[in-house]
C-alpha cells in the first residue's frame, strides 16, 4: 500500500469464507421452498451483504484506509438503498 502501511490480512482466509458463503447461499436458495419468500429474501440479502463487506474491507482495503474514504463510498451505498427503497415503496405501500 503506498498511502497506508498496514499488516497484510490473511487473504486466503477471506477467500475461503467467500467460497463457503457462496456454496451455502446456493444450497439455501435451492433447498428452501420458494413459498417462504421473506425468509428467502432476508437470508440471501444477508449472505450477499456479508460477502460484499468482506470484499470491500479486505480486498479493497477499506478496513485500513482513511475513514473519509469509507464515508465517501458508504454514503453512495446509503443513497443506493434509498433509491431502491423509494422504487419499492410503490409495491409496499397500500394503493389508494
Amino acid at each position, binding site marked *: 500500500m*503506498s*498511502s497506508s502501511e498496514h499488516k497484510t490480512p490473511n487473504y486466503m482466509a477471506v477467500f475461503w469464507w467467500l467460497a463457503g458463503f457462496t456454496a451455502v447461499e446456493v444450497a439455501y436458495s435451492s433447498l428452501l421452498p420458494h413459498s417462504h419468500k421473506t425468509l*428467502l429474501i432476508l437470508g440471501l440479502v444477508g449472505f450477499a451483504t456479508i460477502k460484499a463487506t468482506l470484499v470491500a474491507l479486505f480486498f*479493497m482495503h477499506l478496513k485500513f484506509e482513511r475513514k473519509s*474514504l469509507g464515508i465517501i463510498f458508504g454514503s453512495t451505498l446509503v443513497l443506493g438503498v434509498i433509491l431502491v427503497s423509494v422504487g419499492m415503496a410503490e409495491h409496499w405501500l397500500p394503493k389508494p
Partner: protein
Amino acid sequence: MEAIAVAHGPAHPHEEEEYTTTGIPHDKMGMWVFLCSEVMFFTGLIGSYIVLRFATPLWPPPASVLNIPLTAANTFILICSSVTMVQALAAVSRGDIRRLKLFLCLTLLGGTIFLSIQAVEYWKLLHEGFNPHVSLFGSVFFTTTGFHGFHVFCGVICIAFVTGKAFLGKYTQARHQGIETIGLYWHFVDLVWIVLFTIIYLF
C-alpha cells in the same frame, strides 16, 4: 518556490507517488470517486430489476431458465481472480516481482474464463429462445449481466495493460500505484457480481 511546486505538481517524476493534496494518491482517489459513480450506475440497474420483479406477478423462477451451477462456478472463478489480484499487490509491496507477474497472469486468466463462460451461457440461452425480446425477465437479465460483463471486459483489458507493464519492469516495491488502482476496480466488479448473482440467479 515551494508554492510553485505544489501548484504544478511534483518537480521530479520519481516524486509522483508522494504528491497528494488529500492524503490519498490522486489516481487512487480518482478511482474511488469513479467507483462511487459506478455504485449509482449499478444501483439503477439492480433497483430496476427489483422493482420490476416485484411488480410482475408471473415472473419465471430463475432456476427454470438459468444454469445456476454453471454461474455459481463462474462466481467462484471471479472470486479466485479477486484473490490473485490482491496477492499481486501484496507481492509487489514485498518487492517480489516474479510473483507479481504470476498473480497478474492468473487474474487475467480468471477474468478471461469468466467472460468465456458468460459467452457460453448467453449462446445457450439464445439458442433455447431466451432473449431480450421474449419477456421482461429476459430484457433486464441481458441488460444487467451484459453491462456487468462489459465492465469485466474493460477490467481484463486494463489488467492486460498492467501485466504488460509488469513484464517490462515498470513496477517496483516503491512504485506500484497502478496495480492498486486497477485492483480496486477489479474487486469492485467482483463485489457487484456477488450482489447480481444473488438477486438475479438465486431469488
